[in-house]
């Protein structure tokens, strides 16, 4: 067999890799005061990668490099969205990072490499590629967390993240090896065919499955594999928290889809039960513990745990409508999280982190516009119309009801009621309390425009969600995955 070497399938990755190398080199010759040159170069690379992801998106799934890589509409869509998320994160964090000595070439390059890892995961056709992508992403993120050397919390968070992340990677690898042992292949499509109707002794498959699900749950931060999430979110510099909390969720969704839905689709009944436990525990624990937090970042960390529970609830329906619901949920969550962490960075300034709930007091008096943006983000996380978060909740609940799990839908709405309480508290602080901090809100114009567009997008997609819903359905349907 002649291996199919089709470079267009990995064009976004090539753009990123070359671009990252250029940024790395070019940054050496840029004076400290002209660091924005590297910044704009990075943005150009991201724009190129996003454009390449859209431009090369095939209508039919294409495998290349002996099946190591697949390119399909799902991959194109998620690669594009991840690039956008990273680009927005860089815009939001510009002032924040500059004030903390993190506005450096290395940060940009690591962010680009993390994105490269995500893209490799998103377009993986084999267990090996999946794992390589995951490791590239994780290692870049570990380094980014620990790069804020002057902060003890960040160093500690980096250490925790690294140790626990390495453990999870090991577990994942172990699971993959078991599946390999049972089926004799690392190719996702081949494994999928071999397990379509599993016969004989399934012990080793189930063991492998348990390890794989644990690994995935760790990367998503679902209960009971969530311990790292609050510490890392809280300890890392907010810019990095934003990166960890957004684009990797999209990659994790692709990871989960290729691993569980495609490769282990034949065992759906087995992983459905496991995901159900993860989902229910995450929704309950995430929402309940978030109430007790006084730190904004920790609260959002627990909120992320809860949100991953909702996403899993869509996924575990194990049918196309469930997968598209989970994908929509992931995208909506990423958009909302970008806005909420963007607000934290907007309010922070040199020597001051706006990462406590109290820092949001009286925001409406200081700036009605930014209070409104934060209000949209909070109501979107709470899942209230007319924000995109409502349709995210709606689609996953619909998927669960459709799959016959009405009780799960009831658990979901009751826990989201608990969630509404702490999101409302932020709104209360912003609108009903007097400001404790009266410093003017200053940010670069591009940051302000990007954040405003992001906030309004939550509203726009909440009123007209059809486009985004349609993209999720079409991307999954045309990817030949299901």
């Amino acid at each position, binding site marked *: 067999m002649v291996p199919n070497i089709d470079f267009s399938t990995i064009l976004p990755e090539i753009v990123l890799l070359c671009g990252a190398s250029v940024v790395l080199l070019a940054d050496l010759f840029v004076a400290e005061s002209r660091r924005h040159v590297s910044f704009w170069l990075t943005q150009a690379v991201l724009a190129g990668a996003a454009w390449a992801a859209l431009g090369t998106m095939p209508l039919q799934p294409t495998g290349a490099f002996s099946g190591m890589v697949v390119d399909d509409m799902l991959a194109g869509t998620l690669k594009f969205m991840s690039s956008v998320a990273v680009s927005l994160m860089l815009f939001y964090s510009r002032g924040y990072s500059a004030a903390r000595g993190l506005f450096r070439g290395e940060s940009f390059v690591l962010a680009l490499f993390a994105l490269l890892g995500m893209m490799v995961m998103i377009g993986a056709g084999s267990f090996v590629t999946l794992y390589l992508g995951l490791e590239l992403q994780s290692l870049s993120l570990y380094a980014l967390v620990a790069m804020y050397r002057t902060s003890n919390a960040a160093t500690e968070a980096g250490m925790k993240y690294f140790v626990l992340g390495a453990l999870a990677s090991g577990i994942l690898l172990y699971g993959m090896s078991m599946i390999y042992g049972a089926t004799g292949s690392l190719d996702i499509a081949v494994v999928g065919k071999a397990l379509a109707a599993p016969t004989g002794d399934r012990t080793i498959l189930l063991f492998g499955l348990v390890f794989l699900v644990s690994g995935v749950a760790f990367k998503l931060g679902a209960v009971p594999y969530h311990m790292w999430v609050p510490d890392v979110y809280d300890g890392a510099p907010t810019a990095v928290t934003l990166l960890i909390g957004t684009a990797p969720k999209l990659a994790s969704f692709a990871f989960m889809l290729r691993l569980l839905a495609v490769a282990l689709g034949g065992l759906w009944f087995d992983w459905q039960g496991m995901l159900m436990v993860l989902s229910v525990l995450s929704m309950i624990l995430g929402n309940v513990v978030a109430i007790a937090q006084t730190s904004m970042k920790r609260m959002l960390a627990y909120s992320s745990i809860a949100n991953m529970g909702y996403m899993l609830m869509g996924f575990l329906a194990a049918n196309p409508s469930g997968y598209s619901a989970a994908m929509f949920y992931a995208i909506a969550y990423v958009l909302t999280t970008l806005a909420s962490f963007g607000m934290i960075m907007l309010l922070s300034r040199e020597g001051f982190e706006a990462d406590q709930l109290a820092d949001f007091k009286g925001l*409406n008096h200081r700036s*009605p516009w930014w209070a409104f943006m934060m209000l949209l983000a909070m*109501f979107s996380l709470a899942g*209230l*119309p*007319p924000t995109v978060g*409502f*349709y995210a909740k*709606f689609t996953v*609940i*619909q998927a669960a*009801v*459709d799959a016959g799990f*009405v009780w799960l*839908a*009831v658990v979901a*709405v*009751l826990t*989201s*009621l608990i969630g*509404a*309480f702490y999101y*409302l*508290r932020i*709104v*209360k602080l912003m*609108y*009903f309390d007097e400001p404790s901090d009266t410093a003017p809100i200053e940010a670069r114009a591009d940051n302000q425009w990007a954040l405003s567009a992001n906030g309004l997008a939550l509203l726009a997609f909440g009123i*007209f*969600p*059809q486009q985004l*819903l*349609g993209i999720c*359905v079409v991307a999954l349907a045309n990817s030949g995955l299901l």
Partner: protein
Amino acid sequence: MMSYLSLAIWVPIAAGLAVLAVGRDRDAAAARWIAIAGAIAGLAVTLPLWLQFDTGSSQMQFVERTEWIPRFDIRYHVGVDGISMLFVLLNSLMTVVVVWSAWEVIQVRVAQYMAAFLIQSGLINGAFCALDGILFYSFFEAMLIPMYLIIGAWGGPNRVYAAVKFFLYTLLGSLLMLVALIYLYDVSETFSILEWYDVPLSLKVQVLLFIAFFLSFAVKVPMWPVHTWLPDAHVEAPTGGSVILAAITLKIGAYGFLRFILPIVPDASRYLSGFVIALSLVAIVYIGFVALVQADMKKLIAYSSISHMGFVTLGFFLFSQLGVEGGLVQMISHGFVSAAMFLCVGVMYDRMHSRQIADYGGVVNTMPKFAAFTMLFAMANSGLPATSGFVGEFMVILAAVKANFWLGAAAATIMILGAAYTLWMYKRVIYGAVANDQVAALTDVNRREFWLLAAVALLVFWMGLWPKPFIDVMHNSVADLLAHVAKTKL
């Protein structure tokens, strides 16, 4: 060309956004004028609904139906029948009243206050017009947001507690309704409320759906024992917030009974009607007694609202033409009367900054015109003939007596209790010797307040003396609704 209903929804919202865009705290006058212009425009676009409404038809009128979210077959589908049309008018009218009533009273963040009411008005109109389950739900939920901000930002000392309680209580009910809506979509493949009227459902499913819908709407009405958020919300809300809460948002709960529960789960409704009637009677009698002992005027009116709304749900679950129509008339009348009562308390509160009955006494000596208006509204609240309060109560009592004499007798206690708590409050506040120096220094209603109260008084008389136009509008739709209720879906 947008239909009148779309205009009724979007004109106030657009006006609200305009107020936000233009209004600055320095320049409150501009915000006020744009707000009143927007509110009047919002009322103007609803007038054709009344003028062009075909009372001979029970069908949906002014229908507009376009694709919205084809992925789930969710449509932008609006229309009104005899049941919902009057509430769109009532709401648009009350928006003008609250904007006007806040004229000089609200001094901080005027633009945001006005905008919240205008946007809320559009959302409420949307909830009354929506014929698609998700469209309804979106409006139903979204309308919590402005009210939460209104209570929390412009309310009394305990406003945060009241605002959060209001929000979470209502959300609890409506989230379960969301599951019910999605379940109905799953069995029927559509979100069209009217198509749900013909979907067969087993009794077990109907009962579960009933519970989900019932929780949502019973909290909103509110029915005993899920009413506890209302007194808190009323007491803490600014006058305008109380007016809209009492006059409009409570009505959406009762409207939900007619639009969703009775026709979609008719068998469960009949099966559980005894339960609802029992809760309604508790609300009428027990809450009536609770109202009697209140020391806070707003709290007293809040409990009186719960008691009167109990009358509405009682009327609905008698499943007779007279009962349902009586309930609807009672809803509209209560919209006028409770709004007027809260406006009156607002007038006094603006002068004295107290809502305690004990702080007043002998107000008639310093505010004679005001005392006369309050007398009228107090009488209407007690259900005196010739006021709007009498018509609905009389119809429901008549229907109750037809169903069962003792039921009617129990329901009729509202006439006694209502008169007792309203007139006793009136006596303590308005009559007697001048209680203190502050009361002695009161000034009578100014021109704005006078015309505001006069306008509402006119409506109270109109409906009390000549209710036929209102009943004509609803007659055919109610008959059609009862035909649905009578038909089994098993």
